[in-house]
Protein backbone atom coordinates (compact mmCIF):
# COMPACT_ATOMS: atom_id res chain seq x y z
CA UNK A 1 0.00 0.00 0.00
CA UNK A 2 1.29 3.44 -0.89
CA UNK A 3 1.40 5.62 2.21
CA UNK A 4 -0.80 8.66 2.60
CA UNK A 5 0.81 11.85 1.27
CA UNK A 6 0.12 13.75 4.51
CA UNK A 7 1.60 12.12 7.59
CA UNK A 8 -0.49 12.33 10.75
CA UNK A 9 1.25 9.69 12.90
CA UNK A 10 -0.92 9.76 16.00
CA UNK A 11 -4.22 8.85 14.35
CA UNK A 12 -4.63 5.41 12.73
CA UNK A 13 -5.39 5.62 8.96
CA UNK A 14 -8.78 3.90 9.28
CA UNK A 15 -9.86 6.34 11.95
CA UNK A 16 -8.73 9.28 9.84
CA UNK A 17 -10.83 8.03 6.93
CA UNK A 18 -13.83 7.46 9.20
CA UNK A 19 -13.49 10.98 10.62
CA UNK A 20 -13.19 12.56 7.15
CA UNK A 21 -16.17 10.54 5.88
CA UNK A 22 -18.30 11.51 8.89
CA UNK A 23 -17.41 15.18 8.40
CA UNK A 24 -18.33 15.07 4.71
CA UNK A 25 -21.57 13.23 5.47
CA UNK A 26 -22.51 15.84 8.08
CA UNK A 27 -21.81 18.68 5.63
CA UNK A 28 -23.81 17.10 2.79
CA UNK A 29 -26.69 15.71 4.84
CA UNK A 30 -27.13 18.42 7.46
CA UNK A 31 -25.28 21.67 6.67
CA UNK A 32 -25.98 22.00 2.94
CA UNK A 33 -29.72 21.16 3.21
CA UNK A 34 -30.06 23.79 5.93
CA UNK A 35 -28.19 26.35 3.80
CA UNK A 36 -30.57 25.43 0.98
CA UNK A 37 -33.51 26.49 3.17
CA UNK A 38 -32.06 29.99 3.69
CA UNK A 39 -34.39 32.44 1.89
CA UNK A 40 -31.73 33.99 -0.36
CA UNK A 41 -30.34 30.60 -1.43
CA UNK A 42 -33.81 29.10 -1.86
CA UNK A 43 -34.79 32.09 -4.02
CA UNK A 44 -31.71 31.61 -6.24
CA UNK A 45 -32.43 27.88 -6.62
CA UNK A 46 -36.11 28.56 -7.44
CA UNK A 47 -35.17 31.15 -10.07
CA UNK A 48 -32.73 28.78 -11.72
CA UNK A 49 -35.22 25.90 -11.64
CA UNK A 50 -38.03 28.03 -13.03
CA UNK A 51 -35.82 29.07 -15.94
CA UNK A 52 -34.43 25.59 -16.56
CA UNK A 53 -30.86 26.77 -16.00
CA UNK A 54 -28.17 24.27 -15.12
CA UNK A 55 -25.50 26.43 -13.46
CA UNK A 56 -23.24 23.40 -13.08
CA UNK A 57 -22.89 22.99 -16.86
CA UNK A 58 -19.24 22.70 -17.78
CA UNK A 59 -19.83 23.43 -21.47
CA UNK A 60 -22.83 24.56 -23.48
CA UNK A 61 -23.89 21.03 -24.37
CA UNK A 62 -24.81 20.45 -20.72
CA UNK A 63 -27.27 23.34 -20.62
CA UNK A 64 -30.96 22.47 -20.39
CA UNK A 65 -31.62 24.54 -23.49
CA UNK A 66 -28.96 24.79 -26.13
CA UNK A 67 -28.38 28.46 -26.83
CA UNK A 68 -29.15 27.95 -30.47
CA UNK A 69 -29.57 31.02 -32.54
CA UNK A 70 -31.41 33.48 -30.34
CA UNK A 71 -34.10 35.28 -32.34
CA UNK A 72 -32.29 38.60 -32.27
CA UNK A 73 -29.31 37.13 -34.06
CA UNK A 74 -31.28 35.79 -37.03
CA UNK A 75 -30.13 38.66 -39.20
CA UNK A 76 -26.52 37.54 -38.80
CA UNK A 77 -27.12 33.95 -39.85
CA UNK A 78 -24.62 32.45 -42.19
CA UNK A 79 -25.97 28.92 -42.49
CA UNK A 80 -29.45 27.59 -43.21
CA UNK A 81 -32.52 29.24 -41.70
CA UNK A 82 -33.50 28.07 -38.22
CA UNK A 83 -37.23 27.99 -38.70
CA UNK A 84 -37.34 24.88 -40.92
Amino acid at each position, binding site marked *: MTGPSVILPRIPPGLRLAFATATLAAVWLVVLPSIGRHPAVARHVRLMESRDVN*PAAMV*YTELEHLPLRPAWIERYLVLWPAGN
Partner: protein
Amino acid sequence: MATDPGADLPRRGFHEDFAAILIGVALVTLALAIGWSTRPTEDAGSRKAFPKGWPNRLSATIDKPQTWSDAPQQALVVVDKKDKTKVKPVSIPILLGMTWVVGILAAGTLLRGRSLAAVLPGACFLALLGGLAYLMAAQKVINYYNLEYPLWALLVGLVIGNTIGVPKWLEAALQGEFLIKTGLVVFGAEVLFSRLLELGLPGLLTSWVVTPIVLVVTYLFGVHWLKIPSKSLCMVIAADMSVCGVSAAIATGAACKAKKEELSLAIGLSLLFTVAMMVVMPPFIQWAGIDPIVGGAWLGGTIDATGAVVAAGEMLGKNLDDKRPAEVAATVKMIQNSMIGIIAFAVAVYWAGWVDRDAAGPKTSLVAEAWRRFPKFILGFIGTSIVCSWLFTMSPELALLVDGAIQGFTSRLRGWLFCVGFICMGLQTNFRELAPTLASGRPLILYCLGQALNLVLSLAMASLTFGWLFRQGVTP
Protein backbone atom coordinates in the same frame (compact mmCIF):
# COMPACT_ATOMS: atom_id res chain seq x y z
CA MET B 1 0.16 15.44 -16.45
CA ALA B 2 2.41 13.19 -14.42
CA THR B 3 2.76 9.58 -15.48
CA ASP B 4 0.38 6.92 -14.15
CA PRO B 5 1.76 4.13 -11.95
CA GLY B 6 2.95 1.24 -13.98
CA ALA B 7 3.53 3.35 -17.07
CA ASP B 8 7.16 2.25 -17.11
CA LEU B 9 6.27 -1.46 -17.13
CA PRO B 10 7.16 -3.38 -20.30
CA ARG B 11 4.25 -3.28 -22.78
CA ARG B 12 3.36 -4.93 -26.04
CA GLY B 13 0.33 -2.82 -26.83
CA PHE B 14 -0.47 0.66 -28.05
CA HIS B 15 0.83 3.87 -26.53
CA GLU B 16 -1.62 5.45 -24.11
CA ASP B 17 -2.40 8.31 -26.53
CA PHE B 18 -3.24 5.97 -29.41
CA ALA B 19 -5.40 3.81 -27.16
CA ALA B 20 -7.28 6.96 -26.09
CA ILE B 21 -7.75 7.98 -29.73
CA LEU B 22 -8.94 4.51 -30.82
CA ILE B 23 -11.46 4.19 -28.00
CA GLY B 24 -12.65 7.82 -28.20
CA VAL B 25 -13.16 7.74 -31.95
CA ALA B 26 -14.92 4.35 -31.72
CA LEU B 27 -17.35 5.72 -29.12
CA VAL B 28 -18.18 8.86 -31.11
CA THR B 29 -18.64 6.75 -34.25
CA LEU B 30 -20.90 4.36 -32.34
CA ALA B 31 -23.09 7.23 -31.11
CA LEU B 32 -23.39 8.69 -34.62
CA ALA B 33 -24.09 5.26 -36.17
CA ILE B 34 -26.82 4.46 -33.63
CA GLY B 35 -28.34 7.90 -34.13
CA TRP B 36 -28.33 7.46 -37.90
CA SER B 37 -29.77 3.92 -37.76
CA THR B 38 -32.77 5.16 -35.76
CA ARG B 39 -33.26 8.49 -37.56
CA PRO B 40 -36.78 9.89 -37.53
CA THR B 41 -38.88 9.46 -40.62
CA GLU B 42 -40.81 12.71 -40.27
CA ASP B 43 -39.53 16.25 -39.70
CA ALA B 44 -36.00 14.86 -39.60
CA GLY B 45 -34.49 18.28 -40.31
CA SER B 46 -36.70 20.30 -38.00
CA ARG B 47 -35.03 21.95 -35.04
CA LYS B 48 -38.47 22.73 -33.66
CA ALA B 49 -39.45 19.04 -33.64
CA PHE B 50 -36.07 17.95 -32.20
CA PRO B 51 -34.67 20.85 -30.14
CA LYS B 52 -31.96 18.65 -28.61
CA GLY B 53 -31.22 16.72 -31.79
CA TRP B 54 -32.45 13.29 -32.84
CA PRO B 55 -33.12 10.95 -29.91
CA ASN B 56 -30.20 8.57 -29.47
CA ARG B 57 -30.85 5.09 -28.05
CA LEU B 58 -27.53 5.11 -26.25
CA SER B 59 -29.00 7.73 -23.91
CA ALA B 60 -30.77 4.90 -22.07
CA THR B 61 -27.37 3.42 -21.21
CA ILE B 62 -25.90 6.36 -19.37
CA ASP B 63 -26.95 9.05 -16.92
CA LYS B 64 -25.76 10.70 -13.72
CA PRO B 65 -27.38 11.40 -10.33
CA GLN B 66 -30.06 14.11 -10.51
CA THR B 67 -30.12 17.17 -8.27
CA TRP B 68 -31.29 16.53 -4.69
CA SER B 69 -31.96 18.83 -1.76
CA ASP B 70 -32.49 16.91 1.52
CA ALA B 71 -32.10 13.19 0.88
CA PRO B 72 -29.53 11.65 -1.51
CA GLN B 73 -32.05 9.06 -2.74
CA GLN B 74 -33.83 11.92 -4.56
CA ALA B 75 -30.88 11.79 -6.97
CA LEU B 76 -32.04 8.44 -8.33
CA VAL B 77 -35.26 9.69 -9.93
CA VAL B 78 -36.15 12.33 -12.49
CA VAL B 79 -39.26 14.29 -11.52
CA ASP B 80 -41.33 15.61 -14.42
CA LYS B 81 -41.19 19.41 -14.33
CA LYS B 82 -44.83 19.85 -15.35
CA ASP B 83 -46.38 16.97 -13.42
CA LYS B 84 -44.48 16.44 -10.16
CA THR B 85 -46.23 13.12 -9.56
CA LYS B 86 -44.49 11.60 -12.58
CA VAL B 87 -41.11 10.18 -11.68
CA LYS B 88 -38.68 8.18 -13.78
CA PRO B 89 -36.01 6.08 -12.03
CA VAL B 90 -32.46 6.59 -13.32
CA SER B 91 -30.56 4.14 -11.12
CA ILE B 92 -30.10 1.68 -14.00
CA PRO B 93 -28.65 4.27 -16.43
CA ILE B 94 -26.37 5.51 -13.60
CA LEU B 95 -25.11 1.95 -13.02
CA LEU B 96 -24.67 1.52 -16.77
CA GLY B 97 -22.73 4.79 -16.86
CA MET B 98 -20.34 3.28 -14.31
CA THR B 99 -20.18 0.16 -16.47
CA TRP B 100 -19.08 2.27 -19.48
CA VAL B 101 -16.18 3.60 -17.39
CA VAL B 102 -15.15 0.09 -16.32
CA GLY B 103 -15.46 -1.11 -19.93
CA ILE B 104 -13.32 1.76 -21.24
CA LEU B 105 -10.68 1.15 -18.57
CA ALA B 106 -10.72 -2.55 -19.49
CA ALA B 107 -10.45 -1.82 -23.22
CA GLY B 108 -7.62 0.64 -22.61
CA THR B 109 -5.81 -1.90 -20.46
CA LEU B 110 -6.07 -4.58 -23.16
CA LEU B 111 -5.02 -2.18 -25.95
CA ARG B 112 -1.99 -1.17 -23.91
CA GLY B 113 -1.03 -4.80 -23.33
CA ARG B 114 -1.57 -4.90 -19.59
CA SER B 115 -3.21 -7.41 -17.28
CA LEU B 116 -6.99 -7.04 -17.20
CA ALA B 117 -7.38 -9.00 -13.97
CA ALA B 118 -5.16 -6.53 -12.11
CA VAL B 119 -7.28 -3.58 -13.25
CA LEU B 120 -10.89 -4.76 -12.96
CA PRO B 121 -11.41 -4.64 -9.16
CA GLY B 122 -9.90 -1.17 -8.95
CA ALA B 123 -11.87 0.01 -12.01
CA CYS B 124 -15.17 -1.04 -10.37
CA PHE B 125 -14.19 0.74 -7.15
CA LEU B 126 -13.22 3.92 -9.03
CA ALA B 127 -16.52 3.89 -10.94
CA LEU B 128 -18.38 3.70 -7.61
CA LEU B 129 -16.33 6.62 -6.28
CA GLY B 130 -17.23 8.49 -9.48
CA GLY B 131 -20.89 7.93 -8.64
CA LEU B 132 -20.26 9.26 -5.14
CA ALA B 133 -18.56 12.41 -6.48
CA TYR B 134 -21.46 12.99 -8.90
CA LEU B 135 -23.90 12.51 -6.01
CA MET B 136 -22.05 15.14 -3.97
CA ALA B 137 -22.06 17.55 -6.92
CA ALA B 138 -25.80 17.01 -7.41
CA GLN B 139 -26.74 18.50 -4.02
CA LYS B 140 -28.84 21.54 -4.97
CA VAL B 141 -26.84 24.21 -3.13
CA ILE B 142 -23.63 22.86 -4.64
CA ASN B 143 -25.18 22.43 -8.09
CA TYR B 144 -26.90 25.80 -8.30
CA TYR B 145 -23.77 27.64 -7.19
CA ASN B 146 -21.70 25.97 -9.89
CA LEU B 147 -19.32 23.92 -7.76
CA GLU B 148 -18.80 21.34 -10.50
CA TYR B 149 -18.11 17.64 -10.09
CA PRO B 150 -14.31 17.77 -10.73
CA LEU B 151 -13.90 19.55 -7.40
CA TRP B 152 -15.73 16.78 -5.51
CA ALA B 153 -14.02 14.04 -7.47
CA LEU B 154 -10.67 15.54 -6.48
CA LEU B 155 -11.88 15.81 -2.87
CA VAL B 156 -12.98 12.16 -2.74
CA GLY B 157 -9.59 11.09 -4.12
CA LEU B 158 -7.69 13.42 -1.79
CA VAL B 159 -9.56 12.18 1.29
CA ILE B 160 -8.72 8.55 0.54
CA GLY B 161 -5.18 9.29 -0.65
CA ASN B 162 -4.36 11.40 2.40
CA THR B 163 -5.94 9.16 5.05
CA ILE B 164 -5.41 5.50 4.22
CA GLY B 165 -3.28 5.97 1.09
CA VAL B 166 -3.74 4.05 -2.16
CA PRO B 167 -4.30 0.29 -1.67
CA LYS B 168 -2.10 -1.99 -3.79
CA TRP B 169 -5.10 -3.54 -5.54
CA LEU B 170 -6.17 -0.08 -6.74
CA GLU B 171 -2.84 1.05 -8.16
CA ALA B 172 -3.14 -0.66 -11.56
CA ALA B 173 -6.52 0.97 -12.18
CA LEU B 174 -5.27 4.49 -11.46
CA GLN B 175 -5.21 5.55 -15.09
CA GLY B 176 -6.48 9.10 -14.67
CA GLU B 177 -4.43 10.46 -17.52
CA PHE B 178 -5.75 7.83 -19.92
CA LEU B 179 -9.36 8.49 -18.85
CA ILE B 180 -8.98 12.25 -19.29
CA LYS B 181 -7.34 11.82 -22.70
CA THR B 182 -10.12 9.48 -23.83
CA GLY B 183 -12.67 11.93 -22.41
CA LEU B 184 -11.04 14.74 -24.40
CA VAL B 185 -11.20 12.77 -27.66
CA VAL B 186 -14.93 12.17 -26.99
CA PHE B 187 -15.26 15.83 -25.94
CA GLY B 188 -13.99 16.86 -29.38
CA ALA B 189 -17.44 15.99 -30.75
CA GLU B 190 -18.90 18.79 -28.63
CA VAL B 191 -16.42 21.43 -29.79
CA LEU B 192 -18.09 22.45 -33.01
CA PHE B 193 -16.11 25.04 -34.95
CA SER B 194 -19.10 25.45 -37.22
CA ARG B 195 -21.14 26.93 -34.38
CA LEU B 196 -18.92 29.98 -34.71
CA LEU B 197 -20.41 30.66 -38.12
CA GLU B 198 -23.89 30.64 -36.70
CA LEU B 199 -23.45 32.95 -33.81
CA GLY B 200 -22.72 36.23 -35.41
CA LEU B 201 -19.97 38.76 -35.51
CA PRO B 202 -20.54 40.61 -32.20
CA GLY B 203 -20.08 37.51 -30.08
CA LEU B 204 -17.13 36.43 -32.20
CA LEU B 205 -15.36 39.74 -31.72
CA THR B 206 -16.07 39.81 -28.00
CA SER B 207 -14.64 36.39 -27.32
CA TRP B 208 -12.03 35.89 -30.04
CA VAL B 209 -10.23 39.19 -29.71
CA VAL B 210 -10.07 39.38 -25.93
CA THR B 211 -9.48 35.71 -25.06
CA PRO B 212 -6.15 35.17 -26.88
CA ILE B 213 -4.80 38.50 -25.63
CA VAL B 214 -5.68 37.68 -22.01
CA LEU B 215 -4.34 34.13 -22.34
CA VAL B 216 -0.95 35.17 -23.70
CA VAL B 217 -0.50 38.21 -21.44
CA THR B 218 -1.44 36.24 -18.30
CA TYR B 219 0.94 33.40 -19.20
CA LEU B 220 3.82 35.78 -19.91
CA PHE B 221 3.08 37.73 -16.75
CA GLY B 222 3.22 34.56 -14.65
CA VAL B 223 6.44 33.32 -16.25
CA HIS B 224 8.41 36.57 -16.56
CA TRP B 225 7.13 38.97 -13.91
CA LEU B 226 5.84 36.72 -11.13
CA LYS B 227 8.55 34.19 -11.97
CA ILE B 228 6.37 31.17 -11.15
CA PRO B 229 8.76 28.24 -11.62
CA SER B 230 6.28 26.04 -13.48
CA LYS B 231 5.34 27.29 -16.95
CA SER B 232 2.60 24.65 -17.20
CA LEU B 233 0.94 26.02 -14.04
CA CYS B 234 0.94 29.53 -15.59
CA MET B 235 -0.57 28.15 -18.80
CA VAL B 236 -3.32 26.16 -17.07
CA ILE B 237 -4.30 29.13 -14.88
CA ALA B 238 -4.24 31.46 -17.91
CA ALA B 239 -6.39 29.07 -19.98
CA ASP B 240 -9.01 28.27 -17.35
CA MET B 241 -9.37 31.96 -16.49
CA SER B 242 -9.48 33.33 -20.04
CA VAL B 243 -11.26 30.58 -21.99
CA CYS B 244 -13.92 28.60 -20.20
CA GLY B 245 -12.88 27.27 -16.83
CA VAL B 246 -12.52 23.60 -15.99
CA SER B 247 -12.92 22.20 -19.51
CA ALA B 248 -10.22 24.53 -20.86
CA ALA B 249 -7.96 23.71 -17.90
CA ILE B 250 -8.35 19.99 -18.61
CA ALA B 251 -7.61 20.37 -22.33
CA THR B 252 -4.64 22.72 -22.00
CA GLY B 253 -3.35 20.87 -18.91
CA ALA B 254 -3.18 17.71 -21.00
CA ALA B 255 -1.65 19.61 -23.93
CA CYS B 256 1.18 21.10 -21.84
CA LYS B 257 1.57 18.03 -19.61
CA ALA B 258 0.77 19.92 -16.41
CA LYS B 259 1.20 18.07 -13.13
CA LYS B 260 -1.88 16.74 -11.36
CA GLU B 261 -1.34 19.17 -8.50
CA GLU B 262 -1.18 22.11 -10.92
CA LEU B 263 -4.40 21.15 -12.65
CA SER B 264 -6.13 20.62 -9.29
CA LEU B 265 -4.99 24.04 -8.10
CA ALA B 266 -6.10 25.80 -11.28
CA ILE B 267 -9.52 24.14 -11.14
CA GLY B 268 -9.97 25.02 -7.47
CA LEU B 269 -9.10 28.68 -8.16
CA SER B 270 -11.39 28.80 -11.15
CA LEU B 271 -14.41 27.34 -9.36
CA LEU B 272 -14.06 29.59 -6.32
CA PHE B 273 -13.81 32.72 -8.45
CA THR B 274 -16.66 31.52 -10.65
CA VAL B 275 -19.03 31.29 -7.69
CA ALA B 276 -18.00 34.75 -6.47
CA MET B 277 -18.32 36.35 -9.91
CA MET B 278 -21.65 34.65 -10.62
CA VAL B 279 -23.10 36.14 -7.44
CA VAL B 280 -21.43 39.57 -7.52
CA MET B 281 -21.38 40.59 -11.18
CA PRO B 282 -25.15 40.78 -11.98
CA PRO B 283 -25.95 43.17 -9.08
CA PHE B 284 -22.82 45.17 -9.90
CA ILE B 285 -23.92 45.55 -13.53
CA GLN B 286 -27.35 46.74 -12.40
CA TRP B 287 -25.85 49.05 -9.79
CA ALA B 288 -23.41 50.55 -12.30
CA GLY B 289 -26.19 51.08 -14.81
CA ILE B 290 -24.47 49.05 -17.53
CA ASP B 291 -26.76 48.13 -20.41
CA PRO B 292 -28.09 44.56 -19.80
CA ILE B 293 -27.04 43.35 -23.27
CA VAL B 294 -23.51 44.71 -22.82
CA GLY B 295 -23.57 43.26 -19.30
CA GLY B 296 -24.58 39.85 -20.68
CA ALA B 297 -21.67 39.92 -23.13
CA TRP B 298 -19.36 40.95 -20.30
CA LEU B 299 -20.54 38.02 -18.17
CA GLY B 300 -20.01 35.63 -21.08
CA GLY B 301 -16.50 36.88 -21.67
CA THR B 302 -15.34 36.83 -18.07
CA ILE B 303 -17.05 34.19 -15.90
CA ASP B 304 -15.16 30.94 -16.37
CA ALA B 305 -17.87 28.27 -16.31
CA THR B 306 -20.60 28.02 -18.93
CA GLY B 307 -23.44 27.18 -16.55
CA ALA B 308 -22.49 30.02 -14.21
CA VAL B 309 -22.53 32.42 -17.17
CA VAL B 310 -26.12 31.49 -18.03
CA ALA B 311 -27.15 31.64 -14.36
CA ALA B 312 -25.62 35.12 -13.99
CA GLY B 313 -27.28 36.21 -17.24
CA GLU B 314 -30.64 35.04 -15.92
CA MET B 315 -30.09 36.93 -12.67
CA LEU B 316 -29.27 40.03 -14.70
CA GLY B 317 -32.49 39.78 -16.67
CA LYS B 318 -34.79 38.67 -13.85
CA ASN B 319 -36.04 42.14 -12.97
CA LEU B 320 -36.60 42.98 -16.61
CA ASP B 321 -38.10 39.57 -17.42
CA ASP B 322 -35.71 39.73 -20.34
CA LYS B 323 -34.05 36.64 -21.80
CA ARG B 324 -31.58 38.58 -23.93
CA PRO B 325 -28.80 39.11 -21.34
CA ALA B 326 -28.68 35.35 -20.73
CA GLU B 327 -28.80 34.65 -24.47
CA VAL B 328 -25.97 37.08 -25.19
CA ALA B 329 -23.95 35.70 -22.27
CA ALA B 330 -24.49 32.09 -23.41
CA THR B 331 -23.65 32.97 -27.00
CA VAL B 332 -20.35 34.62 -26.11
CA LYS B 333 -19.47 31.72 -23.82
CA MET B 334 -20.38 29.13 -26.44
CA ILE B 335 -17.97 30.78 -28.88
CA GLN B 336 -15.29 30.60 -26.20
CA ASN B 337 -16.20 26.90 -25.69
CA SER B 338 -15.58 26.38 -29.39
CA MET B 339 -12.08 27.83 -29.02
CA ILE B 340 -10.87 25.05 -26.72
CA GLY B 341 -9.76 22.80 -29.56
CA ILE B 342 -7.72 25.47 -31.32
CA ILE B 343 -6.15 26.69 -28.08
CA ALA B 344 -5.29 23.16 -26.88
CA PHE B 345 -3.71 22.42 -30.27
CA ALA B 346 -1.73 25.68 -30.25
CA VAL B 347 -0.53 25.06 -26.67
CA ALA B 348 0.51 21.48 -27.55
CA VAL B 349 2.51 22.72 -30.57
CA TYR B 350 4.13 25.55 -28.58
CA TRP B 351 5.03 23.20 -25.73
CA ALA B 352 6.40 20.47 -27.95
CA GLY B 353 8.33 22.88 -30.16
CA TRP B 354 9.65 25.45 -27.73
CA VAL B 355 9.02 24.90 -24.01
CA ASP B 356 9.94 21.20 -23.74
CA ARG B 357 12.72 21.39 -26.30
CA ASP B 358 15.96 20.03 -24.90
CA ALA B 359 18.76 22.42 -25.90
CA ALA B 360 21.43 19.93 -24.79
CA GLY B 361 19.80 17.01 -26.63
CA PRO B 362 20.67 15.64 -30.09
CA LYS B 363 20.30 18.17 -32.90
CA THR B 364 17.16 17.36 -34.83
CA SER B 365 14.84 19.54 -36.83
CA LEU B 366 12.28 21.58 -34.94
CA VAL B 367 9.44 19.73 -36.66
CA ALA B 368 10.82 16.27 -35.84
CA GLU B 369 11.48 17.24 -32.24
CA ALA B 370 8.05 18.84 -31.90
CA TRP B 371 6.36 15.76 -33.35
CA ARG B 372 8.23 13.46 -30.97
CA ARG B 373 7.04 15.44 -27.96
CA PHE B 374 3.60 16.32 -29.29
CA PRO B 375 0.76 14.77 -27.21
CA LYS B 376 -0.78 12.68 -29.99
CA PHE B 377 -4.19 12.34 -28.39
CA ILE B 378 -4.75 16.03 -29.27
CA LEU B 379 -5.03 14.83 -32.87
CA GLY B 380 -7.97 12.63 -31.84
CA PHE B 381 -9.55 15.58 -30.04
CA ILE B 382 -9.15 17.85 -33.08
CA GLY B 383 -10.17 15.01 -35.43
CA THR B 384 -13.52 14.30 -33.75
CA SER B 385 -14.12 18.04 -33.55
CA ILE B 386 -13.44 18.58 -37.28
CA VAL B 387 -15.55 15.59 -38.36
CA CYS B 388 -18.53 16.53 -36.17
CA SER B 389 -18.21 20.20 -37.19
CA TRP B 390 -18.18 19.15 -40.84
CA LEU B 391 -21.23 16.90 -40.35
CA PHE B 392 -22.97 19.75 -38.51
CA THR B 393 -22.62 22.05 -41.51
CA MET B 394 -23.63 19.47 -44.14
CA SER B 395 -27.40 19.66 -43.63
CA PRO B 396 -30.00 20.38 -40.95
CA GLU B 397 -30.57 16.59 -40.60
CA LEU B 398 -26.91 15.87 -39.91
CA ALA B 399 -26.75 18.81 -37.48
CA LEU B 400 -29.57 17.17 -35.53
CA LEU B 401 -27.80 13.80 -35.72
CA VAL B 402 -24.66 15.35 -34.19
CA ASP B 403 -26.62 17.23 -31.51
CA GLY B 404 -28.54 14.06 -30.58
CA ALA B 405 -25.36 12.01 -30.28
CA ILE B 406 -23.73 14.68 -28.12
CA GLN B 407 -26.73 15.36 -25.88
CA GLY B 408 -27.79 11.75 -25.57
CA PHE B 409 -24.45 10.05 -25.14
CA THR B 410 -21.02 11.61 -25.67
CA SER B 411 -21.37 14.55 -23.26
CA ARG B 412 -22.60 12.23 -20.49
CA LEU B 413 -19.83 9.72 -21.16
CA ARG B 414 -17.22 12.48 -21.24
CA GLY B 415 -18.52 13.63 -17.84
CA TRP B 416 -18.08 10.17 -16.32
CA LEU B 417 -14.59 9.80 -17.79
CA PHE B 418 -13.48 13.19 -16.46
CA CYS B 419 -15.10 12.47 -13.09
CA VAL B 420 -13.29 9.17 -12.57
CA GLY B 421 -10.13 10.69 -14.05
CA PHE B 422 -10.24 13.39 -11.37
CA ILE B 423 -10.74 10.77 -8.66
CA CYS B 424 -7.51 9.13 -9.84
CA MET B 425 -5.80 12.53 -9.82
CA GLY B 426 -7.03 13.22 -6.29
CA LEU B 427 -5.73 9.86 -5.12
CA GLN B 428 -2.31 10.63 -6.58
CA THR B 429 -2.12 14.34 -5.73
CA ASN B 430 0.53 15.44 -3.32
CA PHE B 431 0.04 19.08 -2.48
CA ARG B 432 3.34 19.21 -0.65
CA GLU B 433 4.99 19.48 -4.07
CA LEU B 434 3.19 22.74 -4.66
CA ALA B 435 3.66 24.04 -1.13
CA PRO B 436 6.44 26.57 -1.91
CA THR B 437 4.51 27.99 -4.88
CA LEU B 438 1.24 28.07 -2.94
CA ALA B 439 2.85 29.72 0.07
CA SER B 440 4.16 32.50 -2.14
CA GLY B 441 0.58 33.31 -3.19
CA ARG B 442 1.77 33.84 -6.75
CA PRO B 443 -0.83 31.58 -8.46
CA LEU B 444 -3.59 33.58 -6.73
CA ILE B 445 -1.97 36.87 -7.77
CA LEU B 446 -1.68 35.58 -11.34
CA TYR B 447 -5.33 34.59 -11.42
CA CYS B 448 -6.49 37.92 -9.94
CA LEU B 449 -4.39 40.09 -12.25
CA GLY B 450 -5.31 38.02 -15.33
CA GLN B 451 -8.98 38.21 -14.42
CA ALA B 452 -8.70 41.97 -13.86
CA LEU B 453 -7.28 42.37 -17.36
CA ASN B 454 -10.02 40.08 -18.69
CA LEU B 455 -12.72 42.17 -16.98
CA VAL B 456 -11.41 45.44 -18.40
CA LEU B 457 -10.83 44.22 -21.97
CA SER B 458 -14.09 42.23 -22.11
CA LEU B 459 -16.13 45.21 -20.92
CA ALA B 460 -14.44 47.46 -23.49
CA MET B 461 -15.06 45.00 -26.32
CA ALA B 462 -18.64 44.21 -25.20
CA SER B 463 -19.42 47.94 -25.11
CA LEU B 464 -17.88 48.37 -28.55
CA THR B 465 -19.65 45.43 -30.21
CA PHE B 466 -22.98 44.96 -28.42
CA GLY B 467 -23.29 48.55 -27.21
CA TRP B 468 -22.34 50.40 -30.38
CA LEU B 469 -21.23 48.62 -33.58
CA PHE B 470 -24.01 46.00 -33.67
CA ARG B 471 -26.48 47.67 -31.36
CA GLN B 472 -29.30 47.58 -33.90
CA GLY B 473 -28.88 43.84 -34.35
CA VAL B 474 -29.64 43.10 -30.71
CA THR B 475 -32.52 45.53 -30.30
CA PRO B 476 -35.92 43.95 -30.89
